[in-house]
């Protein structure tokens, strides 16, 4: 069961939202509502499901309703209709006291402009959540001190917020949120007010903290790079409507309308995508024991210049067509002596690094998973296709034919099937087959 369930949330701003709710549910548009009733449609039928221990990014431009949505989670804004379930409890039904308790214990929040108390020291600010809960001063300050240290602010306890830089102030905000030990962390454009270097630093820090704390984090941003970097899943809002929801790869590789595409325009894809995305699943793989004649037959059958050779699930090297022909002529028993070394990269390598590789040499590159097991061969055409910002289209012209793609037959001993690294991209792998065939 997911940690947070958002069910059919509607939010209409105005004097009599309930009067217009039915009309909106029937599909009245934002513009129509505004023209007819002077009411603003904030959120329209939002349903999300957020897994425990994940970072869930809600993204959109200003006015898309993302900040409104995050304020529904702890009811800083009341929904017009809909439910929000946290651990199965409907937050929208909580009474005043219960809601205060809920905010104290279950959710904490980090704000875009920090929201620190200017008349209190860093330490007092970090302890604020605990003070509100009525925790004793000594205990609260001890906890606050610990968390300030965790975010790298040891020694700044007695400074006032205006004596700190923006990045440091946001660290205080983070420490304050973490100090209450709430399981859910809401971050409302938490890093948007920071300069790019500090932002990156804070993102790293958040990821590092998250790897230890395993909180459920709802992160709001207008920055797609940030969303792709942090999010386990991403939801994209536009004009109060949810227009796409999925893993970063889903969004990047198959944007489902122009709005998302426009968003993706400026993204540096080579930083987000990795070698795993540019793999052609291997249909033909040879082993050390393969007879040269069989190898030659297979390679000729698909017109391949070379084929990967496996040793168990590990890549042993590569066999060139010319060597195979020679081996058949000289009657070697198996191909083991002909196998040449091959460069291999882990699937998690960023495409930018892979690109460097490919520019430096025209040797084929193998891709391995985290256990060093062979996944497949890197496809040059695919790398090029992925890093160009145009949306992927069927691509038949394969890298000027200079680089033969991987074999593509229904061989039984296909290790690619076993390693599940690339299972998410089913639609993409069909394209991979296309490119492979044309080799």
């Amino acid at each position, binding site marked *: 069961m997911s940690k947070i369930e958002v069910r059919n949330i509607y939010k209409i701003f105005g004097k009599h939202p309930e009067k217009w709710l039915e009309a909106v549910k029937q599909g009245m548009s934002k513009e129509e509502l505004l023209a007819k009733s002077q009411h603003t449609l904030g959120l329209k039928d939002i349903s999300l499901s957020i897994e425990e221990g994940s970072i869930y990014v809600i993204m959109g431009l200003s006015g898309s309703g993302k900040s409104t949505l995050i304020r529904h989670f702890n009811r800083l804004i009341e929904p017009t209709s809909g439910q929000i379930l946290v651990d199965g409890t409907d937050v929208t039904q909580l009474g005043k006291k219960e809601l205060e308790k809920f905010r*104290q214990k279950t959710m904490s929040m980090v704000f875009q402009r920090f929201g620190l108390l200017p008349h209190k020291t860093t330490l007092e600010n970090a302890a604020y959540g605990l003070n509100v809960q009525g925790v004793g001063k000594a205990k609260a300050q001890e906890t606050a001190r610990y968390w300030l240290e965790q975010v790298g602010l040891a020694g700044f306890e007695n400074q006032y917020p205006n004596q700190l830089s923006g990045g440091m102030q946001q660290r205080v905000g983070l420490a304050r949120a973490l100090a209450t030990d709430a399981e859910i962390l809401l971050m409302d454009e938490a890093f948007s007010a920071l300069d790019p270097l500090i932002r990156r630093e804070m993102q790293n820090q958040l990821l590092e903290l998250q790897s230890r704390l395993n909180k459920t984090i709802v992160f709001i941003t207008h920055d797609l790079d940030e969303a792709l970097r942090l999010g386990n899943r991403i939801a994209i809002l536009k004009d109060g409507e949810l227009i796409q929801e999925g893993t970063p790869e889903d969004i990047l590789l198959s944007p489902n309308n122009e709005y998302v595409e426009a968003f993706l325009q400026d993204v540096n894809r080579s930083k987000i995508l990795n070698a795993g995305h540019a793999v052609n699943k291997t249909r033909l793989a040879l082993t050390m024991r393969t007879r040269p004649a069989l190898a030659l037959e297979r390679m000729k059958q698909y017109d391949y210049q070379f084929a990967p050779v496996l040793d168990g699930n590990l890549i042993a090297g590569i066999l060139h067509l010319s060597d195979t022909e020679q081996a058949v002529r000289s009657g070697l028993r198996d191909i083991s002596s002909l196998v040449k070394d091959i460069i291999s990269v882990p699937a998690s390598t960023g495409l930018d690094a892979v690109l460097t590789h490919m520019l430096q040499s025209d040797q084929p590159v193998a891709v391995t998973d985290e256990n060093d097991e062979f996944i497949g061969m890197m496809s040059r055409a695919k790398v090029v296709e992925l890093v160009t910002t145009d949306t992927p289209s069927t691509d038949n012209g394969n890298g000027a034919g200079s680089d033969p793609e991987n074999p593509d037959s229904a061989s039984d001993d296909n290790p690619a099937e076993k390693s599940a690294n690339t299972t998410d991209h089913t639609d993409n792998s069909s394209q991979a087959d296309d490119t492979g065939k044309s080799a």
Partner: protein
Amino acid sequence: MFPEIISSRSVRDSIDGFVDYLVMNYADGLNSMSEPILAALVWLEQLLRNAPWWSIIILTMLLAYGMSRRIAFSFGMGAMLFLLGAMGLWDAGMQTLSLMIMATGLSIIIGIPMGILMSKFNRFRSVMLPVLDVMQTMPSFVYLIPVVMLFGLGKIPAIIATVIYAVPPVIRLTDLGIRLVDAEVLEASRAFGASSTQQLFGVQIPLALPNIMAGINQTTMMALSMVVIASMIGARGLGYEVLLGINRLEVGRGLLAGLGIVILAVIFDRITQSYGKRKQIRGAR
């Protein structure tokens, strides 16, 4: 000629009748209600007048230092008070000072809660704003008459008239200060589950404090400007000296007493302002 739509005589008569009715039926009750205030005022006045002059000066200097943390400033304040005594106005000055402290204290006690209520309830605010306008613009003599009728001549009507005249700034600026509190800070405190009391005392009032202090400062200034009028209904002190000066055409007496009022005003003003400033500098974002 403007046509007579409402007979002003009948309106006047009915107002007069109403005030008479109040005086007949409630004067005693109101008087006994004001008894504790009078007692406190008399006690304060006795204290200030009977205390050795140097102790008052030292106290003022300590207060100035406590508010501003500047030594030269507090010596300056002490010197001003010394000057007041040197002009032969010590006793009158202490009488005025006690009236001032009392009136300002009452204004703060009434004004800050009113300001908080105004900031919380828009409807209350829309009622209060015109009332405050009336309080600030209505000539004070107009309400001096009924107040004197109800309480008789003396210190209590002087205090009441002063409070009516001086309380609007502290109400307005408390309201304004709370409304100006950074919405995100307040939202943060709500997000951490603060109750409305915790929000008020932990966030709103502390952050509104520079504005509230400006309001208190304005209130003391306005209260001081009322002392001459208050002296007409029986409050003694520097205002009474001015009044004597006017009645006897003694320009010198009037001028010196006027300077005495200015000195008190400057002391009050600088001390309250320096406190607000110090808060503001520390709290600046």
